[in-house]
């Protein structure tokens, strides 16, 4: 299995954005722009660009997991042509089922700063401190991008499942940010202390 880092938080094991888009199409057929909106609302943490969603749709179609059809009932494009709509195929639905049934390993964290800590001599500590402080600021900036209206109403109506799922996703994301902020905060204090004592 290949790993790739995401947002500098950690690595994601086997996260397949293809299956996310496929799953949304199984829920409900749609066209590119509409799918990107749905991805943003429900899986904002993926930070998928619109062009990436279009590319994913092309790839899914090549795989035969989805197919396009023209639907005149869904508001046309600017030039008045019918929208190219996508829907899942039988083989796509089977693929999705298999993906959902596959267990993923937990995501692992591989942080560059963690490695640098062990490889920095005392004279390099000021730069390390700056980097750690900048990363802490980045965490707070990332939090700002996740802001959204509250999904639960104080009066107490039941929160729909998809909203609850989005909350749980955000919760993981923000808890990882918090772990990182707290860790950075702690090491900044220690590094600062070392710098002060050595000067």
């Amino acid at each position, binding site marked *: 299995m290949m790993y*790739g880092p995401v947002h500098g938080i950690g690595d994601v*094991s086997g*996260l397949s954005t293809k299956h996310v888009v496929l799953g949304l199409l199984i829920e409900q057929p749609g066209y590119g722009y509409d799918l990107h909106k749905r991805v943003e609302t429900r899986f904002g943490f993926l930070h998928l660009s619109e062009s*990436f969603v279009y*590319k994913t749709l092309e790839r899914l179609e090549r795989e035969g997991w989805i197919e396009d059809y023209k639907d005149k009932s869904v508001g046309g494009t600017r030039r008045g042509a019918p929208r190219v709509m996508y829907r899942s195929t039988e083989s796509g639905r089977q693929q999705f089922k298999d993906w959902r049934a596959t267990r993923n390993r937990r995501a692992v964290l591989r942080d560059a700063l963690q490695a640098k800590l062990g490889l920095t001599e005392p004279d390099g500590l000021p730069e390390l401190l700056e980097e750690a402080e900048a990363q802490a600021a980045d965490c*707070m900036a990332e939090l700002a991008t996740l802001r959204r209206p509250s999904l639960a109403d104080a009066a107490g109506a039941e929160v729909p499942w998809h909203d*609850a799922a989005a909350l749980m996703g955000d919760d993981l994301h923000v808890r990882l940010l918090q772990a990182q*902020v707290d860790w950075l905060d702690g090491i900044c204090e220690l590094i600062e202390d070392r710098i002060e004592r050595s000067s």
Partner: protein
Amino acid sequence: MQPLLRLESVSKAYMRGPRELRVLKDVSLDVHPGEFVGIYGQRASGKTTLLRVAAGFEPPSDGTVSFDGTDLAGLSRNRRARLHREEIGWVERAGPQSAGLVMRVYVALPLYRTVGPVEAQRRALAVLSKVGAADAADARWSSLSDTARTLVAIAEALVRGPRLLVVDDPTAGLGIIDRERVVGLLRSAAEDGGLGVLMAVPDLPAMLHAHEVRSLSRGRLLAPADPPPSGGNVVEFPGSERSA
């Protein structure tokens, strides 16, 4: 627009035996009407001190705290007490001093002197139901869940019709959905009620609904975060499925 609350270069130090403990260092912060500002900090980072100084319960060692343009240090004790009775609502999950009180009375107490018990309780009920805690009206503090206690504490502050809410750790011990409810309620107090809301929490997920989030670290308040230019350090997903 003039800020409702302004902290300018506020420092706060305590003497702990022979040592001076500097809890807040050069903290500046504005809260405008209709704005919900969140302070994130780990335990013992100085959050509660910051809130107490901001609300005028403690004087700063240095710097100024002004409410609606007036320096709090210049106010008489009476004037300050009135401010706390009417304009600045302090929210903390402390509960009533007398354990026998039912919540409709507890929430009504701040109004007893001004409007009398009957009207005070009527308004208390209205606020309790507005915050989603109507069920707690006839209950005692000891029988309430953490969520209900938080909602009652918010109601007890809101009943005064304050212009500023200062909220200390409202989400401790709450699950995801209840946390969402409580913080959403504070945000709508700001957006719909036009209040300034200042909240401090040691829990980053509780910050999701704040308009501005500041991080308190080692007594210093970090500058407000600018969103990253490209959505952060986003890189390839496995199998290079992702375009740059």
